[in-house]
């Protein structure tokens, strides 16, 4: 498979079309949704850049925390949720809060990098 244009280039092109051509011609609700659409594409662009490495790091931390390996971070997260729900893992479990903080900082760096709570967490 080729990547000319790459997924990143295609999304950038669509985002530029929304921002520079479509949005200025819209009013009211449509203009609002155009801004939301543009922001959603910005989220996808950040995800393409940040997720592969962040998710690999998350998976490695989960394997340490749970003492087991799995195919995906998603499967390990399911196990972690079960362990929290059963009480086997809780707020005083060594490494839990640090892991969740690192994971959530990475997630927000994709989802809402301007959010005030992210600045509080990284201060």
């Amino acid at each position, binding site marked *: 498979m080729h990547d000319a244009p790459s997924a990143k280039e295609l999304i950038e092109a669509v985002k530029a079309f929304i921002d520079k051509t479509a949005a200025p011609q819209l009013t009211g609700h449509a203009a*609002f*949704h155009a801004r*939301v*659409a543009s*922001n*959603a594409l910005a*989220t996808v662009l950040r995800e393409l850049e940040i997720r592969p490495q962040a998710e690999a790091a998350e998976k490695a931390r989960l394997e340490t925390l749970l003492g087991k390996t799995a195919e995906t971070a998603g499967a390990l*997260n*399911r196990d*972690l*949720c079960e362990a*929290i*729900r059963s*009480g086997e893992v*809780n*707020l005083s479990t060594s490494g*839990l*809060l640090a892991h*969740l*903080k690192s*994971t*959530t*900082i990475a*997630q*927000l760096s*994709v*989802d*809402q990098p301007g*959010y*005030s*709570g*992210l*600045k*509080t*967490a990284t201060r």
Partner: protein
Amino acid sequence: MPLAAWAAAHFGAGARLEALKRLSGGASQETWAFDVLAADGPHPLILRRAPGGVAAARSSEAVSLATEAALLGATSASGVRVPAVLHVSPPGSAIGEAFIMRRVAGETLGRKILRDDEFAHARTTLTRDCGEALARIHAVPVAGLPDLPRSLGEDQIAKYEAIYRGFDMPRPVLELAFAWLKANAPAPAPPVLVHGDFRLGNLIVDPGGLGAVLDWELAHIGDPREDIAWLCVNSWRFGHSEKRVGGFGDVPELLDAYHAAGGAKIAPADIDWWEILGSLKWGVMCMIMYSAYKTGADPSVERAAIGRRVSENEIDLINLFEGLGRHA
């Protein structure tokens, strides 16, 4: 037109309607602004009306318009600043199920209230104003109120946990919040009238401070600490995280004003549990809004994108967990 007929009956023949404008298109409510020009001058008013004048199936928690109007009367009698209700229109009447209240001048947008010079003085009094208003709301005699839903902390945990589990989208931070809240639940306080959505956005602020408390749809009988902590949830600080009370104030000042106005004595550490519940609830509500996209009920990009705001509440929860020791 029924509204013009009401205006003539209420303000005298010759009273004219002007500038009728729809303000919001909520699924459960219509809100209209209008002016009545009467012999004694202009009267700025608001009409709150069921869509098409007929009550639709509302969210299980939202109170009826007639109840909302009754709450405005009861809270006003207890000294809470709320818009005066002029008319309650029953289902099946010409106007339809609705009520009419005075339109209070001022601003509701959180970002403007926290930023604009016009509100610089208001920001210095708003913390005390909110403490007093909350104490008066919580002191309203419950016996005289219409039937309201009863929802204490444990009811809310059960409700939101059932919704969260129904989505089958496990999120460890939310899971930890549910587990921690259950393991650390405080003894319930004596139940009082709780506003249910007391925060910037639902408060009219004028240059002098708090002008009126709006949006009583989520009022219920519950724990007074729920209202106090909801005002502190970081989502309602509109970027001004350093001020825990709504982006404008500090918790000790709020709690002092609350106690001075007759409210219970509450310690800042007591707010943590309720603020964690507040952030957790808002996180699950973002999942609910996203699920409207996922199920196809609302295919808008806005509903899809809101699913990427759950993580805002997750970082707020983590910051709260890290701060637990500091507030003790």
